[in-house]
């Protein structure tokens, strides 16, 4: 079967033959860094194009269809425009923090790439606290947003940043609780073990209704954490012009934009790893023939298929639901999602103790 694992092994062996192990390791680090940066750039282009097409079709429009074949190069042209634009720093702004903020947001998104398993045995860093790492690093990006809002010296930016802070503090809780549900079922924080445990069926099927509830809560919390409509309080075009990135222009704005889409990809990757089995093919119990056919589809296709399906669902949310006010947003979290999530964790614990899952 075709596998991406072989390529990395060949590179690893070749580097170790040519150089001493330290230099080989450093070279591998730089190759991985290069790949991650390029992957983010391509991801940004693809996801922005996908978002524009999805939104167009949902609003009975055509969407970009002029640049390139069926508008494929539209986002590349937009990026070129943003690169050529002037990156303005306002006079009253705190120049250091203002220029630092987009990089903090971007780097925190990049750090989240480390524990994600893209394919079978194809993971940058399989740490034993992968889930905890993801949950903690994903809340670092709010520091970048607060930094941007504070340093802009603009009331809209500050309001947007403060809202974003309140939002992430609230929604981290229910995201954490739904992650804990899966951690209880698996008994491990390591992402590779979580994926291995879904060999005979994904958790969303094996975990009965509590897993589905946890999945839905995680999706809602993920939408809120990435600051996307219907939870786009931080950006709030209709109230705060553009929220925390009102004052940004040119490439610094593009970095914020890119980080938003990178974060969407990452939360969807985490959701598909925890609930939909990551790169694990779709297996049904003991149907050997069916499972073998499913195994023939490369694991990387399974992973990206699931992730893009979830990204599509989150885009579907954005272009269907009306925006929430900030008080409604906090009501939803503290009065609905958090109590339901807590009760759900109790049920999951009971299920794990009694062994009711498959």
């Amino acid at each position, binding site marked *: 079967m075709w596998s991406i694992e072989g390529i990395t092994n060949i590179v690893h062996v070749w580097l170790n033959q040519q150089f001493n192990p330290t230099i080989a390791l450093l070279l591998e680090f730089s190759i991985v860094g290069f790949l991650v940066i390029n992957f983010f750039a391509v991801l940004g282009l693809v996801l922005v194009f996908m978002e524009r097409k999805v939104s167009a*079709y949902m609003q009975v429009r055509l969407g970009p269809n002029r640049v390139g074949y069926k508008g494929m190069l539209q986002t590349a042209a937009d990026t070129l425009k943003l690169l050529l634009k002037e990156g303005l720093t306002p006079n009253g702004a705190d120049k250091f923090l203002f220029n630092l903020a987009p990089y903090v947001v971007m780097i925190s998104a990049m750090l989240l790439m480390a524990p994600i398993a893209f394919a079978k045995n194809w993971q940058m860093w399989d740490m034993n606290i992968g889930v905890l790492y993801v949950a903690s690093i994903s809340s670092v990006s709010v520091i970048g947003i607060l930094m941007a809002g504070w340093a802009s010296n603009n009331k809209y930016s500050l309001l947007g940043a403060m809202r974003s802070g309140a939002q992430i503090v609230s929604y981290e809780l229910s995201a954490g609780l739904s992650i804990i549900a899966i951690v209880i079922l698996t008994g491990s924080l390591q992402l590779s073990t979580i994926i291995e445990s879904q060999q005979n069926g994904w958790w969303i099927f094996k975990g009965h209704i509590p897993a589905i509830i946890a999945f839905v809560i995680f999706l809602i919390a993920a939408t809120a954490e990435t600051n996307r409509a219907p939870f786009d309080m931080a950006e709030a075009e209709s109230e705060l012009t553009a929220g925390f990135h009102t004052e940004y222009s040119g490439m610094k704005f593009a970095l914020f934009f890119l980080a938003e889409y990178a974060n969407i990809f990452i939360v969807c990757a985490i959701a598909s790893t925890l609930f939909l089995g990551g790169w694990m093919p779709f297996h049904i119990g003991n149907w050997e023939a069916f499972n073998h056919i499913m195994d023939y589809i490369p694991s990387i296709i399974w992973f990206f298929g699931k992730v893009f399906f979830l990204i599509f669902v989150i885009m*579907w*949310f954005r272009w269907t639901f009306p925006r929430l006010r900030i008080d409604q947003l906090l009501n939803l979290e503290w009065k609905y999602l958090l109590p339901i999530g807590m009760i759900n964790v109790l049920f999951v614990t009971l299920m794990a103790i009694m062994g009711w899952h498959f």
Partner: protein
Amino acid sequence: MFLTNYIKTIYSSVKSLLIGMNRTGYYFTHHKEIITQNYPDVTPVFPERFRGEVVMTHDEKNEHRCTGCSACEIACPNGTIKIVTKFDVSPDGKKKKAIDKFVYHLELCTMCNLCVVACPTDAIKMDQTFEHSVFNRADLTKVLNKPGSKLMEGVE
């Protein structure tokens, strides 16, 4: 009581959100519903009552139905229409009033259709042309009656 209300709220909100997602999902999968028209590539299709500009109808003998009664000029709220009259001399020596020029200022027109409603003889109507941009502002002042045209028999 509180708990039933709580569960009812969750049920009804989830249901209404799913109805919305069903609608957008339908539009996403059914591309024939798209209402965007590829204008420069494809000639656009307009609704029947689309109002582009005022034109005067002429038949194949180059005759129009305008008697020069100025009802449209009076009806127009922003002075778009100016009718210049002349006196035709009929073969039996009678003088008869007729239009010389039906001047129409497209740049002032708001397409309100009041002139068409006011016309007693249905001489003018709204056309569906819409590409009105010109390089010279004077080009927007149009004379609607064609040169050499005359009043149709039996309109008065």
